[in-house]
Protein backbone atom coordinates (compact mmCIF):
# COMPACT_ATOMS: atom_id res chain seq x y z
CA UNK A 1 0.00 0.00 0.00
CA UNK A 2 1.42 3.34 -0.90
CA UNK A 3 1.55 5.83 1.88
CA UNK A 4 1.33 9.58 1.95
CA UNK A 5 4.57 11.18 3.07
CA UNK A 6 4.75 14.93 3.56
CA UNK A 7 7.74 17.17 4.09
CA UNK A 8 6.89 20.27 6.07
CA UNK A 9 7.79 23.23 3.91
CA UNK A 10 8.19 26.32 6.05
CA UNK A 11 11.02 28.06 4.22
CA UNK A 12 13.87 26.51 6.23
CA UNK A 13 15.83 25.18 3.27
CA UNK A 14 17.15 21.71 2.57
CA UNK A 15 13.76 20.25 1.71
CA UNK A 16 14.85 19.49 -1.84
CA UNK A 17 17.57 17.14 -0.61
CA UNK A 18 15.14 15.30 1.62
CA UNK A 19 12.65 15.01 -1.22
CA UNK A 20 15.32 13.65 -3.58
CA UNK A 21 16.45 11.13 -0.95
CA UNK A 22 12.91 9.85 -0.64
CA UNK A 23 12.61 9.69 -4.43
CA UNK A 24 15.67 7.44 -4.47
CA UNK A 25 13.72 5.16 -2.12
CA UNK A 26 10.78 5.21 -4.50
CA UNK A 27 8.63 7.55 -2.41
CA UNK A 28 7.07 10.67 -3.87
CA UNK A 29 6.79 13.02 -0.91
CA UNK A 30 4.71 16.15 -0.95
CA UNK A 31 6.04 19.50 0.19
CA UNK A 32 3.44 21.37 2.16
CA UNK A 33 2.77 23.83 4.94
CA UNK A 34 -0.94 23.07 4.94
CA UNK A 35 -2.10 21.94 8.39
CA UNK A 36 -4.87 19.67 7.10
CA UNK A 37 -2.59 17.92 4.66
CA UNK A 38 0.10 17.44 7.30
CA UNK A 39 -2.39 16.12 9.85
CA UNK A 40 -3.73 13.43 7.53
CA UNK A 41 -0.39 12.21 6.15
CA UNK A 42 0.95 8.76 7.06
CA UNK A 43 4.44 10.07 7.71
CA UNK A 44 5.64 13.58 8.39
CA UNK A 45 9.18 14.81 7.86
CA UNK A 46 10.16 18.05 9.54
CA UNK A 47 13.48 19.24 8.05
CA UNK A 48 15.45 22.37 8.66
CA UNK A 49 18.81 24.02 8.36
CA UNK A 50 19.95 27.49 9.30
CA UNK A 51 18.89 29.66 12.20
CA UNK A 52 16.30 28.76 14.83
CA UNK A 53 14.81 32.24 15.16
CA UNK A 54 13.41 32.69 11.63
CA UNK A 55 12.43 29.01 11.55
CA UNK A 56 10.38 29.29 14.75
CA UNK A 57 8.82 32.49 13.47
CA UNK A 58 7.84 30.81 10.20
CA UNK A 59 6.29 27.90 12.10
CA UNK A 60 4.30 30.27 14.26
CA UNK A 61 3.06 32.25 11.28
CA UNK A 62 1.69 29.07 9.74
CA UNK A 63 0.30 27.76 13.04
CA UNK A 64 2.59 24.73 12.74
CA UNK A 65 4.14 25.24 16.18
CA UNK A 66 0.86 24.18 17.76
CA UNK A 67 0.01 21.54 15.16
CA UNK A 68 3.24 19.52 15.22
CA UNK A 69 3.11 18.45 18.91
CA UNK A 70 -0.45 17.16 18.37
CA UNK A 71 0.43 14.88 15.45
CA UNK A 72 -0.11 11.17 16.04
CA UNK A 73 1.56 9.59 12.99
CA UNK A 74 5.34 9.00 12.88
CA UNK A 75 7.14 12.35 12.63
CA UNK A 76 10.84 12.71 11.84
CA UNK A 77 12.61 15.96 12.64
CA UNK A 78 15.94 16.39 10.88
CA UNK A 79 18.76 18.63 12.15
CA UNK A 80 17.20 22.00 12.99
CA UNK A 81 13.79 20.30 12.75
CA UNK A 82 14.82 17.98 15.57
CA UNK A 83 16.21 20.85 17.61
CA UNK A 84 12.99 22.82 17.26
CA UNK A 85 11.15 19.83 18.75
CA UNK A 86 13.19 20.17 21.97
CA UNK A 87 12.49 22.17 25.12
CA UNK A 88 14.73 25.17 25.24
CA UNK A 89 16.84 26.70 22.47
CA UNK A 90 19.93 28.57 23.59
CA UNK A 91 20.36 30.13 20.11
CA UNK A 92 17.42 32.45 20.57
CA UNK A 93 16.78 31.99 24.28
CA UNK A 94 13.33 30.66 23.44
CA UNK A 95 11.20 27.63 24.01
CA UNK A 96 11.00 24.99 21.32
CA UNK A 97 7.98 22.82 20.67
CA UNK A 98 8.68 20.91 23.89
CA UNK A 99 8.26 17.41 22.46
CA UNK A 100 11.65 16.15 23.60
CA UNK A 101 12.46 17.26 27.12
CA UNK A 102 16.07 18.19 26.43
CA UNK A 103 17.72 21.55 25.92
CA UNK A 104 19.65 22.66 22.84
CA UNK A 105 23.01 24.30 23.58
CA UNK A 106 25.85 25.77 21.56
CA UNK A 107 29.07 23.81 21.24
CA UNK A 108 31.89 25.32 23.27
CA UNK A 109 34.67 27.04 21.37
CA UNK A 110 37.08 24.31 22.48
CA UNK A 111 35.93 22.52 19.32
CA UNK A 112 35.70 23.86 15.81
CA UNK A 113 32.16 25.01 15.19
CA UNK A 114 30.12 23.91 13.27
CA UNK A 115 30.55 20.21 13.96
CA UNK A 116 30.79 19.35 10.28
CA UNK A 117 31.42 15.99 8.69
CA UNK A 118 31.00 12.28 9.24
CA UNK A 119 30.83 11.04 12.80
CA UNK A 120 29.95 7.77 14.46
CA UNK A 121 26.87 7.08 16.51
CA UNK A 122 26.86 5.03 19.69
CA UNK A 123 24.18 3.22 21.67
CA UNK A 124 21.78 3.38 18.72
CA UNK A 125 18.53 1.68 19.56
CA UNK A 126 15.03 1.18 18.25
CA UNK A 127 13.29 0.83 14.91
CA UNK A 128 15.02 3.81 13.32
CA UNK A 129 18.41 2.07 13.43
CA UNK A 130 17.24 -1.38 12.45
CA UNK A 131 19.74 -2.97 10.05
CA UNK A 132 21.88 0.13 10.04
CA UNK A 133 25.46 -1.01 10.63
CA UNK A 134 26.41 -0.49 14.26
CA UNK A 135 29.57 1.35 13.27
CA UNK A 136 27.82 3.55 10.77
CA UNK A 137 29.13 7.02 10.05
CA UNK A 138 26.58 9.72 9.49
CA UNK A 139 26.84 13.27 8.18
CA UNK A 140 26.45 16.09 10.69
CA UNK A 141 26.52 19.84 10.27
CA UNK A 142 25.41 21.91 13.24
CA UNK A 143 26.60 24.44 15.80
CA UNK A 144 24.04 23.60 18.47
CA UNK A 145 23.34 20.22 20.02
CA UNK A 146 20.64 18.53 22.08
CA UNK A 147 21.71 17.25 25.49
CA UNK A 148 21.43 13.60 26.36
CA UNK A 149 18.07 12.86 27.97
CA UNK A 150 15.54 10.12 28.48
CA UNK A 151 14.45 10.37 24.84
CA UNK A 152 17.98 9.84 23.50
CA UNK A 153 18.13 6.81 21.18
CA UNK A 154 21.62 7.40 19.75
CA UNK A 155 24.62 9.39 20.93
CA UNK A 156 27.55 11.03 19.23
CA UNK A 157 30.61 12.60 20.73
CA UNK A 158 32.09 15.92 19.72
CA UNK A 159 34.06 17.13 22.70
CA UNK A 160 31.02 16.14 24.71
CA UNK A 161 28.41 13.47 24.13
CA UNK A 162 25.11 14.71 22.68
CA UNK A 163 21.89 13.29 21.27
CA UNK A 164 22.40 12.06 17.70
CA UNK A 165 18.77 10.92 17.70
CA UNK A 166 15.74 11.26 19.92
CA UNK A 167 12.44 9.46 20.18
CA UNK A 168 9.33 9.97 22.21
CA UNK A 169 6.25 7.95 21.22
CA UNK A 170 5.58 8.74 17.53
CA UNK A 171 8.15 11.56 17.42
CA UNK A 172 11.62 10.91 16.07
CA UNK A 173 14.45 13.31 15.60
CA UNK A 174 17.93 13.01 14.19
CA UNK A 175 20.70 15.55 14.39
CA UNK A 176 22.55 14.06 11.43
CA UNK A 177 21.29 14.33 7.87
CA UNK A 178 20.05 10.88 6.81
CA UNK A 179 19.43 12.27 3.31
CA UNK A 180 23.17 13.01 2.99
CA UNK A 181 24.59 10.09 4.94
CA UNK A 182 25.25 7.60 2.19
CA UNK A 183 23.86 4.08 2.42
CA UNK A 184 23.60 4.17 6.23
CA UNK A 185 21.43 7.27 6.01
CA UNK A 186 19.26 5.68 3.35
CA UNK A 187 18.67 2.70 5.61
CA UNK A 188 17.58 4.99 8.43
CA UNK A 189 15.14 6.82 6.14
CA UNK A 190 13.83 3.49 4.89
CA UNK A 191 13.36 2.41 8.51
CA UNK A 192 11.38 5.54 9.28
CA UNK A 193 9.15 4.92 6.28
CA UNK A 194 8.35 1.41 7.50
CA UNK A 195 7.61 2.34 11.11
CA UNK A 196 4.00 1.84 11.94
CA UNK A 197 2.10 2.76 15.03
CA UNK A 198 1.66 -0.84 16.10
CA UNK A 199 5.42 -1.06 16.54
CA UNK A 200 5.41 2.17 18.48
CA UNK A 201 2.62 1.21 20.84
CA UNK A 202 4.36 -1.97 21.86
Amino acid at each position, binding site marked *: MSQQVVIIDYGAGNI*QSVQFALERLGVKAQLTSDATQIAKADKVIFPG*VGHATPALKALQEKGLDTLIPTLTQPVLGICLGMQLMCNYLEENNANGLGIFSVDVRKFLATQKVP*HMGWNKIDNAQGALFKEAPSDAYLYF*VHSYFANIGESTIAETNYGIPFSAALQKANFYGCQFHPE*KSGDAGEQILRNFLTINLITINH
Partner: protein
Amino acid sequence: MLTKRIIPCLDIKEGRTVKGINFKNLVDAGDPVELASYYSDQGADELVFLDISATAEKRKTFAALVRKIAQKINIPFTVGGGIASVAEARTLLLAGADKISINSAAIRNPTLIKELSEAFGGQCVVVAIDAKKVDDTWRVYSVGGAKPTSLNLFTWAKEVVKLGAGEILFTSMDNDGTKQGFANKALLQLSKTVNVPIIASGGAGEIAHFTETFRTSGADAALAASVFHFNQITIPQLKKELHTQGIAIRKTP
Protein backbone atom coordinates in the same frame (compact mmCIF):
# COMPACT_ATOMS: atom_id res chain seq x y z
CA MET B 1 34.99 10.72 16.57
CA LEU B 2 34.61 13.24 13.78
CA THR B 3 36.46 11.89 10.76
CA LYS B 4 38.67 13.71 8.29
CA ARG B 5 37.00 14.30 4.94
CA ILE B 6 38.30 13.47 1.47
CA ILE B 7 36.90 15.79 -1.18
CA PRO B 8 37.36 15.41 -4.93
CA CYS B 9 36.88 18.70 -6.76
CA LEU B 10 35.32 18.84 -10.21
CA ASP B 11 35.62 21.81 -12.54
CA ILE B 12 32.52 22.27 -14.63
CA LYS B 13 32.23 24.21 -17.84
CA GLU B 14 28.92 24.51 -19.62
CA GLY B 15 27.60 21.49 -17.80
CA ARG B 16 30.55 19.19 -18.47
CA THR B 17 33.58 18.23 -16.42
CA VAL B 18 36.73 19.93 -17.58
CA LYS B 19 40.13 18.44 -18.27
CA GLY B 20 40.80 15.02 -19.60
CA ILE B 21 39.30 13.01 -16.81
CA ASN B 22 40.23 9.48 -17.56
CA PHE B 23 38.33 6.53 -16.22
CA LYS B 24 38.10 3.31 -18.11
CA ASN B 25 35.01 2.16 -16.26
CA LEU B 26 32.93 5.25 -16.87
CA VAL B 27 30.85 5.54 -19.97
CA ASP B 28 31.11 9.30 -19.95
CA ALA B 29 33.62 10.86 -17.55
CA GLY B 30 32.63 14.25 -18.94
CA ASP B 31 29.21 13.83 -17.35
CA PRO B 32 29.43 15.40 -13.88
CA VAL B 33 26.49 13.35 -12.60
CA GLU B 34 28.10 10.08 -13.55
CA LEU B 35 31.46 11.14 -12.15
CA ALA B 36 29.87 12.38 -8.91
CA SER B 37 28.11 9.09 -8.51
CA TYR B 38 31.36 7.23 -9.15
CA TYR B 39 33.24 9.20 -6.48
CA SER B 40 30.40 8.78 -4.02
CA ASP B 41 30.48 5.01 -4.53
CA GLN B 42 34.24 5.06 -4.09
CA GLY B 43 33.84 6.60 -0.63
CA ALA B 44 34.35 10.32 -1.19
CA ASP B 45 33.03 12.13 1.88
CA GLU B 46 31.94 15.22 0.04
CA LEU B 47 32.24 16.75 -3.42
CA VAL B 48 32.98 20.23 -4.70
CA PHE B 49 31.80 21.47 -8.09
CA LEU B 50 33.29 24.67 -9.43
CA ASP B 51 31.51 26.26 -12.34
CA ILE B 52 34.03 27.97 -14.56
CA SER B 53 31.51 28.98 -17.24
CA ALA B 54 32.03 32.57 -18.15
CA THR B 55 28.52 33.88 -18.58
CA ALA B 56 25.34 34.15 -16.56
CA GLU B 57 23.48 32.33 -19.34
CA LYS B 58 25.74 29.31 -18.96
CA ARG B 59 25.28 29.37 -15.20
CA LYS B 60 21.66 28.45 -15.71
CA THR B 61 22.95 25.18 -17.09
CA PHE B 62 24.85 24.81 -13.86
CA ALA B 63 21.74 25.15 -11.67
CA ALA B 64 20.03 22.45 -13.72
CA LEU B 65 23.09 20.27 -13.31
CA VAL B 66 23.16 20.84 -9.54
CA ARG B 67 19.62 19.55 -9.40
CA LYS B 68 20.57 16.41 -11.30
CA ILE B 69 23.52 15.80 -8.99
CA ALA B 70 21.35 16.25 -5.89
CA GLN B 71 18.85 13.78 -7.29
CA LYS B 72 21.51 11.20 -7.80
CA ILE B 73 24.02 11.29 -4.93
CA ASN B 74 23.51 10.82 -1.20
CA ILE B 75 26.56 12.64 0.16
CA PRO B 76 26.95 16.39 0.70
CA PHE B 77 28.29 18.67 -1.99
CA THR B 78 29.43 22.25 -2.34
CA VAL B 79 29.05 24.40 -5.42
CA GLY B 80 30.98 27.49 -6.35
CA GLY B 81 32.18 29.68 -9.16
CA GLY B 82 30.99 33.20 -9.75
CA ILE B 83 28.30 33.29 -7.07
CA ALA B 84 27.94 36.95 -6.20
CA SER B 85 24.49 37.40 -4.69
CA VAL B 86 22.05 35.90 -2.22
CA ALA B 87 19.66 35.25 -5.13
CA GLU B 88 22.23 33.20 -7.06
CA ALA B 89 23.08 31.24 -3.92
CA ARG B 90 19.42 30.59 -3.23
CA THR B 91 18.89 29.14 -6.71
CA LEU B 92 21.72 26.66 -6.19
CA LEU B 93 20.73 25.73 -2.62
CA LEU B 94 17.13 25.21 -3.68
CA ALA B 95 18.39 23.00 -6.48
CA GLY B 96 19.84 20.77 -3.78
CA ALA B 97 23.40 21.95 -3.10
CA ASP B 98 24.40 21.72 0.55
CA LYS B 99 26.92 24.51 0.64
CA ILE B 100 27.96 27.36 -1.57
CA SER B 101 31.50 28.53 -1.95
CA ILE B 102 32.40 32.13 -2.65
CA ASN B 103 35.78 33.64 -3.34
CA SER B 104 36.33 36.83 -5.37
CA ALA B 105 32.81 38.08 -4.67
CA ALA B 106 33.55 37.95 -0.95
CA ILE B 107 36.70 40.00 -1.48
CA ARG B 108 34.84 42.58 -3.57
CA ASN B 109 31.92 42.68 -1.17
CA PRO B 110 32.57 41.15 2.25
CA THR B 111 29.01 41.96 3.33
CA LEU B 112 27.88 39.16 1.02
CA ILE B 113 29.23 36.66 3.54
CA LYS B 114 27.06 38.15 6.25
CA GLU B 115 24.00 38.26 3.99
CA LEU B 116 24.43 34.62 2.98
CA SER B 117 25.02 33.50 6.53
CA GLU B 118 21.96 35.34 7.77
CA ALA B 119 19.81 34.01 4.96
CA PHE B 120 20.86 30.35 4.99
CA GLY B 121 23.00 29.80 8.08
CA GLY B 122 26.77 29.85 8.28
CA GLN B 123 26.91 26.06 7.89
CA CYS B 124 26.37 26.38 4.16
CA VAL B 125 28.71 29.30 3.53
CA VAL B 126 32.20 28.27 2.48
CA VAL B 127 34.69 31.02 1.81
CA ALA B 128 37.42 29.90 -0.57
CA ILE B 129 40.71 31.70 -0.20
CA ASP B 130 43.58 31.51 -2.71
CA ALA B 131 46.86 32.74 -1.30
CA LYS B 132 50.58 32.58 -1.85
CA LYS B 133 53.63 33.65 0.06
CA VAL B 134 54.97 37.02 -1.01
CA ASP B 135 57.91 38.43 0.96
CA ASP B 136 57.19 36.16 3.88
CA THR B 137 53.52 37.00 4.21
CA TRP B 138 50.60 35.03 2.86
CA ARG B 139 48.95 37.31 0.32
CA VAL B 140 45.36 36.67 -0.81
CA TYR B 141 44.66 36.61 -4.55
CA SER B 142 41.35 37.04 -6.31
CA VAL B 143 39.91 36.20 -9.74
CA GLY B 144 41.16 32.64 -9.66
CA GLY B 145 44.59 33.62 -8.44
CA ALA B 146 45.14 36.19 -11.15
CA LYS B 147 44.91 39.35 -9.11
CA PRO B 148 46.84 40.15 -5.93
CA THR B 149 44.92 41.90 -3.17
CA SER B 150 46.14 43.80 -0.16
CA LEU B 151 44.69 41.15 2.14
CA ASN B 152 46.69 38.87 4.38
CA LEU B 153 45.49 35.27 4.57
CA PHE B 154 45.11 35.16 8.32
CA THR B 155 43.47 38.53 8.84
CA TRP B 156 41.11 37.82 5.94
CA ALA B 157 40.27 34.40 7.40
CA LYS B 158 39.44 35.99 10.74
CA GLU B 159 37.29 38.56 9.00
CA VAL B 160 35.27 36.04 6.95
CA VAL B 161 34.57 33.95 10.05
CA LYS B 162 33.48 37.05 11.92
CA LEU B 163 31.09 37.77 9.04
CA GLY B 164 29.58 34.30 9.31
CA ALA B 165 31.53 31.86 7.13
CA GLY B 166 31.08 28.30 8.37
CA GLU B 167 34.09 26.81 6.65
CA ILE B 168 37.27 27.92 4.88
CA LEU B 169 38.65 26.31 1.74
CA PHE B 170 42.27 27.38 1.59
CA THR B 171 44.22 26.83 -1.60
CA SER B 172 47.92 27.47 -1.43
CA MET B 173 48.89 28.75 -4.88
CA ASP B 174 52.50 27.91 -4.05
CA ASN B 175 51.61 24.27 -3.63
CA ASP B 176 48.84 23.94 -6.21
CA GLY B 177 49.94 21.84 -9.15
CA THR B 178 53.29 20.93 -7.60
CA LYS B 179 52.20 17.53 -6.23
CA GLN B 180 54.65 18.16 -3.38
CA GLY B 181 52.17 18.18 -0.52
CA PHE B 182 49.80 20.62 1.17
CA ALA B 183 50.84 23.93 2.78
CA ASN B 184 50.82 22.43 6.25
CA LYS B 185 52.44 25.27 8.16
CA ALA B 186 50.02 27.85 6.84
CA LEU B 187 47.12 25.45 7.42
CA LEU B 188 48.17 24.97 11.02
CA GLN B 189 48.39 28.68 11.60
CA LEU B 190 44.96 29.06 9.99
CA SER B 191 43.56 26.41 12.33
CA LYS B 192 44.92 28.34 15.28
CA THR B 193 43.54 31.61 13.94
CA VAL B 194 39.92 30.61 13.31
CA ASN B 195 37.52 28.16 14.90
CA VAL B 196 35.72 26.81 11.82
CA PRO B 197 36.52 23.69 9.77
CA ILE B 198 39.30 24.10 7.22
CA ILE B 199 39.67 22.34 3.88
CA ALA B 200 43.26 21.95 2.69
CA SER B 201 43.71 22.39 -1.04
CA GLY B 202 46.66 22.49 -3.40
CA GLY B 203 49.61 20.15 -3.60
CA ALA B 204 48.25 16.63 -3.25
CA GLY B 205 50.48 14.24 -5.18
CA GLU B 206 50.63 11.07 -3.16
CA ILE B 207 48.87 9.35 -0.28
CA ALA B 208 51.53 10.39 2.23
CA HIS B 209 50.60 14.04 1.62
CA PHE B 210 47.12 13.42 2.96
CA THR B 211 48.46 11.57 6.01
CA GLU B 212 50.88 14.38 6.67
CA THR B 213 48.35 17.18 6.40
CA PHE B 214 45.85 15.42 8.67
CA ARG B 215 48.61 14.70 11.20
CA THR B 216 50.27 18.05 11.29
CA SER B 217 48.09 20.85 9.94
CA GLY B 218 44.81 20.73 11.84
CA ALA B 219 42.96 20.53 8.50
CA ASP B 220 39.53 18.92 8.73
CA ALA B 221 39.30 17.93 5.11
CA ALA B 222 41.58 17.62 2.11
CA LEU B 223 40.56 18.50 -1.41
CA ALA B 224 42.20 17.34 -4.59
CA ALA B 225 41.39 17.12 -8.27
CA SER B 226 43.92 15.67 -10.67
CA VAL B 227 45.29 12.89 -8.45
CA PHE B 228 41.77 11.50 -8.33
CA HIS B 229 40.74 12.32 -11.88
CA PHE B 230 43.82 10.70 -13.35
CA ASN B 231 43.56 7.72 -11.06
CA GLN B 232 46.94 8.35 -9.46
CA ILE B 233 45.28 7.85 -6.10
CA THR B 234 42.05 5.96 -5.65
CA ILE B 235 39.83 6.87 -2.73
CA PRO B 236 39.51 3.31 -1.31
CA GLN B 237 43.30 2.97 -1.39
CA LEU B 238 43.74 6.40 0.22
CA LYS B 239 41.23 5.74 2.98
CA LYS B 240 42.68 2.35 3.74
CA GLU B 241 46.12 3.81 4.18
CA LEU B 242 44.89 6.74 6.29
CA HIS B 243 43.08 4.28 8.53
CA THR B 244 46.23 2.17 8.86
CA GLN B 245 48.11 5.32 9.80
CA GLY B 246 45.65 5.98 12.61
CA ILE B 247 43.82 8.89 10.99
CA ALA B 248 40.09 8.97 11.82
CA ILE B 249 38.36 8.29 8.54
CA ARG B 250 34.91 7.13 7.49
CA LYS B 251 35.25 3.55 6.51
CA THR B 252 33.55 2.85 3.24
CA PRO B 253 32.98 -0.41 1.42
